[in-house]
């Protein structure tokens, strides 16, 4: 089922988070928003973390590059990386069409609650409209 952007939580740094229960664990799927993809434009490279890595909230876990710019990716959650989307770096063009489904970057088994600072869709849209 397609992921609905209006149900996700967003970091100020444009990562989205989708939390699902899986066998008693809370698994956060993380990507970057369609707004961020549009702002970056002409993506050429993405660096993904290793499975098993422990991430803290706000920790840099990789980077995405456009023709002109390098942008670090920050973890909006704390936990262990349990899966990375290894097809993504070779298919970055698809992010333009599908930032919320095909465009997921990594899955993290949460070790703590989501931070309060994550925005809902309305708040994130407001941030984007002010930036754009």
């Amino acid at each position, binding site marked *: 089922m397609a992921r609905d952007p209006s149900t996700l939580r967003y970091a100020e*740094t*444009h*990562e989205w988070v989708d939390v699902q229960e899986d066998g008693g664990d809370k698994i956060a799927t993380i990507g*970057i928003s369609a707004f*961020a993809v549009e*702002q*970056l*434009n*002409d993506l*050429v*490279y993405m*660096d993904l973390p290793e499975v098993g890595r422990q991430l803290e909230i706000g920790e840099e876990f990789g*980077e*995405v*590059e*456009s*023709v*002109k*710019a*390098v*942008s*670090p*990716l*920050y973890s909006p959650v704390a936990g262990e990386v349990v899966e990375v989307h290894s097809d993504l*770096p070779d298919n970055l063009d698809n992010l333009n069409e599908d930032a919320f489904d095909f465009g997921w970057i990594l899955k993290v088994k949460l070790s703590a609650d989501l931070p309060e600072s994550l925005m809902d869709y309305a708040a994130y849209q407001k941030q984007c409209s002010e*930036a754009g």
Partner: protein
Amino acid sequence: MTTSSTNDPVGTPSAPADCLQTPLDAWHRQAGAKMVPFAGYSMPIQYEGIVAEHQACRTKAALFDVSHMGRLRFDGDHAAEFLDHVLTRRVTDMAPGQVRYGMVCNADGGILDDVLVSFLQTPSERRFHLLVVNASNREKILKWFEPHLADFPTVTMSDRTELTAMIAIQGPKAVEICKRLFTIDPSRLKNYSALVTDQFSKPVIVSRTGYTGEDGLELIVRAEEAPRIWENVLLAGREVGFVPAGLGARDTLRMEAGMPLYGHELDETIDPITAGLKFGCNLKDRHFIGEEALRMIAEQGPTRRRIGLLPQGKRPAREGCPVLNADGETIGQVTSGGPSPTLGVPIAMAIVDAKHAEDVTFQIDIRGKTVEALPTKLPFYKRPAVAK
């Protein structure tokens, strides 16, 4: 993520209010360009996207607003002698209509700017020289010239930058389409030549020059005429795919063409020989500022050299990344780097210790991860020869 940049001229997302505006500023904003501050001006970095604009320039043609570049006019007897004294290139033997690439150097041979000098003649046969300088260096060059001009009292220097606009039309179809608009036939202009003509009922300087590796023209027009001329050219070229292009594409195009950019491959600590621009220096039988130092560097060989590198893999190396030799020792750094839209692989220019410039393998430290890089001749891209 944050949308920070590591490679000029992409910068902060919106231009501060105190930036200068080119005569085409309103057009850019109306067209939805992303504007950024660059060298004191608010400039379009891109419209639809850097790669699309880059490819349009390589296959059709693209229009660039380069009005931020400085335009300095020199009139009076001995203007050629003055320029001969401050430029690495001989000016006194130029015929009307010629354009030359050269540099302004300090006494140590460090590059204060790289410039195009044109010797022009108006339809009423008035002759003058025009120097196109980098936007970021205009004030510096004006100040540098002032004391030297004092030795040439018959020469006057006037800064024409804000009275005029400059439009670059670059790409394989540029000249052909411009034929339809111009009363002159621009295809009869040889490379690196220019003329003053009445186009669009106003005086225009047309030159067969550019900074993209493509064939093309650069126009200098009165500021108030710029929007009309810009739109006329775009309209004439619409059916073959002319597009406006921003500084982002201009940078990837010049990088592929192996052209140095001031502040990256060139600065006051780099001399023309280190930068691989010996062709832009006439050392024989001349005396100019920096000539003694350059002669010595040419004889002894530079200690550093500009080279081209192909980082292996998909990850682009960016300006400032350390360049290492096969043993892992730092021998220089990347001066410009990024993906090449035409070649589909990352490219980089670097300045390295001269004794390693001929090495067969290099490594580049891209933010903590080392990748192999292979040397390659510059330019990375050369436009196909056109059968005559």
